[in-house]
C-alpha cells in the first residue's frame, strides 16, 4: 500500500526534521536511497521548483516527491504525513507555551538541536554539489584534472554567491531572480551537456 508507506515516510521526516523546509532534505535523500520513488537529480530539480514557486518549501517538496511516487493523491498524502507531527506537537506546545519557554531541559535540548540542523542542511547541500560540480567519472576516463571540475557551473556559482552577498544592488533581490538568471545561463551555455 504505497499511500500508507508515503504517509509513514513523510510523517517520520516531519517528526524529526528540525529547522524548517530545508531540514527535510536529508530525509528526502534517505527516502531516495531506500526507495525507487525519485533520484538525487530529480530531488535537485524538486528543490529548485520548490524554491521558485509560492508556499512552504517543505510542503512543495513533499507534494512533488509524493507526486513522483504515486501521482496527485501521493502528493497530498505525503504532505499530510509531513505536517501531522508538527500540528500535533504545536497544538500541545501552544497550550503550554509559557511553561515550555522557561523549561531549562527543553532549552538545553534546543541548544544541541540548532547546530545539528545546520549541519544536516550543510551536508545535504554538499552531497548535491558534489554530483554537479565534481565529475569523478569523466576524470577517471580522461585522466585530466581539468575534467574533474565542472568549470562552467563553478564560475556561475561564484558569480551568484558574489551577487547575492556582496553587491549592494543585487544582494536583496528575491531568490526567484537568481534562479531565473541561472536558468537563462544554463540554456545559453548548454549546462546539461557538461554533465555528460
Amino acid at each position, binding site marked *: 500500500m504505497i499511500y500508507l508507506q508515503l504517509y509513514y515516510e513523510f510523517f*517520520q521526516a*516531519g517528526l524529526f*526534521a528540525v*529547522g*524548517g*523546509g*530545508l531540514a527535510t532534505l*536529508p530525509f528526502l535523500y*534517505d527516502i531516495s536511497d531506500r526507495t525507487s520513488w525519485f533520484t538525487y537529480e530529480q530531488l535537485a*530539480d524538486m*528543490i*529548485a*521548483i520548490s*524554491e*521558485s*514557486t*509560492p*508556499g*512552504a*518549501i517543505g510542503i*512543495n517538496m513533499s*507534494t*512533488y516527491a509524493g*507526486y*513522483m511516487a504515486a501521482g496527485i493523491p501521493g502528493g497530498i498524502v505525503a*504532505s499530510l504525513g*509531513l505536517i501531522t507531527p*508538527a500540528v500535533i*506537537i*504545536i497544538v500541545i*506546545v*501552544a*497550550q503550554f507555551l509559557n511553561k515550555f519557554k522557561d523549561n*531549562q531541559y527543553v*532549552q538545553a535540548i*534546543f541548544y*544541541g538541536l*540548532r*547546530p*545539528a540542523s545546520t*549541519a*544536516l*542542511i550543510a*551536508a545535504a*547541500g*554538499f*552531497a*548535491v*554539489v558534489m554530483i554537479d560540480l565534481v565529475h569523478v567519472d569523466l576524470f577517471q576516463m580522461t585522466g585530466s584534472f581539468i575534467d574533474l571540475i565542472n568549470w562552467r557551473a563553478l564560475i556561475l*556559482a561564484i558569480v551568484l*554567491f558574489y551577487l547575492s552577498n556582496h553587491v549592494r544592488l543585487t544582494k536583496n533581490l*528575491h*531568490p526567484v531572480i537568481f534562479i531565473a538568471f*541561472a*536558468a537563462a*545561463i*544554463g*540554456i545559453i551555455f548548454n*549546462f546539461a551537456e*557538461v554533465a555528460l
Partner: protein
Amino acid sequence: MKDLFELFITFARIGGLTFGGGYAMLPILQREVVDIKKWTTTEELMDYYAIGQTTPGLIAVNTATFIGQRYRGTLGGVVATFGVIFPSLFIISIIAMFMNNFEDSIVLQNAFAGIRVSVYVLILNAVIKLWKKSIVDKVGLLIFLLIFSLSIFTSLSPVLFVIGAGIIGLLTKMQRGERLK
C-alpha cells in the same frame, strides 16, 4: 464556521504569496495577521517563529498552527495549516504534471542544470545565516562538525543525529548548571 473559513482563506493567501519558504513568510504574516486581522501581535509572532525553528516540522506550518490555535482553538490550528499548504498542493501538482511531459526537453534540462547551481548558492547562503544563529560556542561547533562529517561519510539515519544532538545539548547544559551551583 465563518471564523474558520476566514482562517483558511487568510492562510491560503499567505501561502500563495510567500516565495522562498518560512523566512520569507514573516513580513506577509505581519501584514495579514497582525496589521489587518489582529489575531496576534508582532512579539508573539517572533516567539512562534523561535519555537517553530526549534521544534520539528516546517516553520510556516508551525506558525500557522500556533496562530490558528490561538484564534480558534485546536480546530483553528488545523484549519490554518490546511490553508497555508493548500496553494502548494495545487501549484506543485500542476507543475509536476507538466514536468513529466517535458522530461525529454533539452532546453528544460539546460535550464535545470543552471537552476541547480543557483539552488546550491541559495542553500549555502541559508546555511551561513543559520550558522550565525546556531553555532554560538565550541560545543555547537563540535556538534556541527561531528554531524556534518557523519552525514557525508556514513549512511546513518538523520534521526539518530537529531536525537544524539539533543542528548549532547541536555548533558552539556546540565553539566554547566552543576558547575554553577
